[in-house]
């Protein structure tokens, strides 16, 4: 970085003098602890000075917003033209219940939808499967057929609102339902917009919602990328996610490194399998990060993420389109940072985390509700969480200027350090033969297990503090209202599903499932066949069973 000679000399001199003062002061006023570190255990120095960033090259390493390496953001105008999307993840009980919650959130100023499905839907089982016992509608909305999906979308303007769907192994099926719903409502596919999470590698690494083995799972993802590029151009067909990796206990660097390395794996697969040009599809790749409680570390992680991805797209994949180099991402505040004890404090935690996401330049944000450690958010808790974003955007002034922390000795230095450590991991995984090979070895899984255990040990020893959990405990209880999903939601859902099975045309269901089977076997794109199948009212599980039959099932190796 450019500093004048006078400034360098003055800085060195003043820093040496300050160091002497510190030594004197420590004799009478020792530090509260020997070592200061982030929540990821990254060591933090007492002071950062110009020396920490003197090797940086302004044009190459920092640059301007909207310019390579996009450290300062993809958008030339920052948040001035448009705030990030306020996108609250929600889903509960039946399709009708969720539709009602969505309409409430849109009325209150939410600008995008985000769907939480229940576990049977996430895993590709119908509500009446023995595997779904006790789970229907519990952690999200239950969707078995297109009929449920149409209820979910009732009154939602598909050409105007973008919808994110957190769905992974059955992503092709739920996306097919969205496309079919658009078709029925007369909205062309080229006009619908949204995101399917559709990132299977992080499922094997962290979230554990899997169905088929990694290799065919990635094939299905490449099918969606190809189909989206041709017909649904406004759709983000993958949201390459670090969120769950972090929640499983990873450090900030591990979150970043494993996510970016997953992204590399997907790009390689599409280029190889579909013979597509990287610039044709890379602009629609999107990312999803966690914003944890360690404020500066998170800001630096998000800034570093943009710079690393830009370099990868330019240098590794020879992308030419600047939009291919943009790392566009959604952020969610950290569920794992919240505490069940003294739950109102969670509002404060979420606010700090949301602020970090904004200062890190997120394009979209979900803020957790204070009750999310217990259950799905109540309407009131979800509203407070949404208001948190609105206050940050419209009251605090933090969105007025672009990347306001750039140039800070500390911020730039920590951003660089996170980037370096991320490259180390990426290189290591490259040397293993890529992410699928690394997953087969259990490498990312065990790295995360190690970090999670280390943090827990630090917490138990009191080296890391969580207020209300291991310090400032209180016996005073201020109970909060909890949302409970009744067992009858499941019973009613099963009734609806059985009704659909009775009335549909069994022959066309069978034909469309046969077509999916044959596409899987031949290596053809399954998407057009999935859309036909859901229109014929094939159930989610019927389609997923075809995948299981052709590709086999993946089982948790149970590493710890």
């Amino acid at each position: 970085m450019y500093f004048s000679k006078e400034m360098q000399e003055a800085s060195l001199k003043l820093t040496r003098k300050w160091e002497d003062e510190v030594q004197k002061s420590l004799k009478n006023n020792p530090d509260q602890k020997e070592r200061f570190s982030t929540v990821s255990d990254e060591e933090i120095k007492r002071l950062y000075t110009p020396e920490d960033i003197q090797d940086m090259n302004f044009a190459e390493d920092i640059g301007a917003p909207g310019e390579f390496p996009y450290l300062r953001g993809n958008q030339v105008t920052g948040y001035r033209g448009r705030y990030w999307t306020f996108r609250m993840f929600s889903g509960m009980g039946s399709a009708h219940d969720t539709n009602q919650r969505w309409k409430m959130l849109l009325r209150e100023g939410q600008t995008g939808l985000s769907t939480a499905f229940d576990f049977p839907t996430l895993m590709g089982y119908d509500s009446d499967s023995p595997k779904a016992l006790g789970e229907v509608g519990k952690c999200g909305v239950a969707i078995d057929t297109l009929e449920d999906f149409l209820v979910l979308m009732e009154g939602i303007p598909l050409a105007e609102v973008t919808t994110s769907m957190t769905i992974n192994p059955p992503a092709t099926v739920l996306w097919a339902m969205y496309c079919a719903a658009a078709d029925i409502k007369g909205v062309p596919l080229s006009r619908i917009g949204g995101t399917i999470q559709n990132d299977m590698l992080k499922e094997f690494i962290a979230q554990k919602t899997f169905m088929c083995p990694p290799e065919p799972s990635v094939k299905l993802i490449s099918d969606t990328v190809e189909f989206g590029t041709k017909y649904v151009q406004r759709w983000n067909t993958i949201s390459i996610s670090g969120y769950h990796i972090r929640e499983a206990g990873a450090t900030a660097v591990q979150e970043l490194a494993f996510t970016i390395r997953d992204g590399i794996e997907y790009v390689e697969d599409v280029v190889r399998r579909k013979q597509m040009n990287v610039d044709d599809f890379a602009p629609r790749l999107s990312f999803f990060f966690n914003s944890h409680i360690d404020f500066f570390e998170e800001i630096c992680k998000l800034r570093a993420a943009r710079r690393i991805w830009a370099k990868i797209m330019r240098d590794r994949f020879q992308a030419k389109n600047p939009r291919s180099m943009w790392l566009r991402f959604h952020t969610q505040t950290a569920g794992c940072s919240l505490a069940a004890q003294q739950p109102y404090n969670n509002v404060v935690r979420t606010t700090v985390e949301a602020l970090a996401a904004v200062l890190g330049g997120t394009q979209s944000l979900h803020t957790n509700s204070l009750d999310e450690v217990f259950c799905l958010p109540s309407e009131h808790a979800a509203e407070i969480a949404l208001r948190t974003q609105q206050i940050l955007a419209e009251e605090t002034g933090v969105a007025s200027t672009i990347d306001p922390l750039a140039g800070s000795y500390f911020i730039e230095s920590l951003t660089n350090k996170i980037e370096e450590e991320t490259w180390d991991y990426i290189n290591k995984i490259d040397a293993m033969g890529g992410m699928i090979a690394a997953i087969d070895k259990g490498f990312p899984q065990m790295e995360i297990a190690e970090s999670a255990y280390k943090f827990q040990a630090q917490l138990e020893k009191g080296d890391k503090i969580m207020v209300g959990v291991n310090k400032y405990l209180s016996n005073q209880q201020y109970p909060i209202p909890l949302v409970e999903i009744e067992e009858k939601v499941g019973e009613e859902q099963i009734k609806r599903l059985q009704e659909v099975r009775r009335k549909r045309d069994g022959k066309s269901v069978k034909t469309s499932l046969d077509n999916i089977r044959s596409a899987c076997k031949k290596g053809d794109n399954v998407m057009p066949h999935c859309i036909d199948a859901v229109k014929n009212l094939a159930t989610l599980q019927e389609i997923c069973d075809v995948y299981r039959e052709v590709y086999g099932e993946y089982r948790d190796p149970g590493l710890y």
Partner: protein
Amino acid sequence: MPERKIRVMVAKPGLDGHDRGARILARCFRDAGFEVVYTGCHQTPEQIAASAIQEDVDAVGLSCLSGAHRVLFPRVVELLREKGAEDIAVIGGGIIPEQDFSTLYESGIKAIFTPGASLDSIVEWIKTNIKPH
């Protein structure tokens, strides 16, 4: 004859993949000197009961964060009883609201640990209440 170590199975019933707690506990039990079996995610109650018997464990620790504990935990106890293995103690943890405690205890769950329970307190409970058979 050397004293037999306590054998504990950590199991994840249901479909949720929130295994951070389960995996930390498996490590912690190993460090505490127990013999540990970890099932991995997505186990049915039938699979859990069968492996508990086959692995000849002294206790089963169930972890569930999806809300399905109300149905799944009692089912594991019931299946163990049906197979004559009621001497295997079943304990549970995860996101479990207090109002569910009494039903779970009545169904035969021996202890419940919720967010904030220290690893030490769980290990202590097992050392005090579980005798290797």
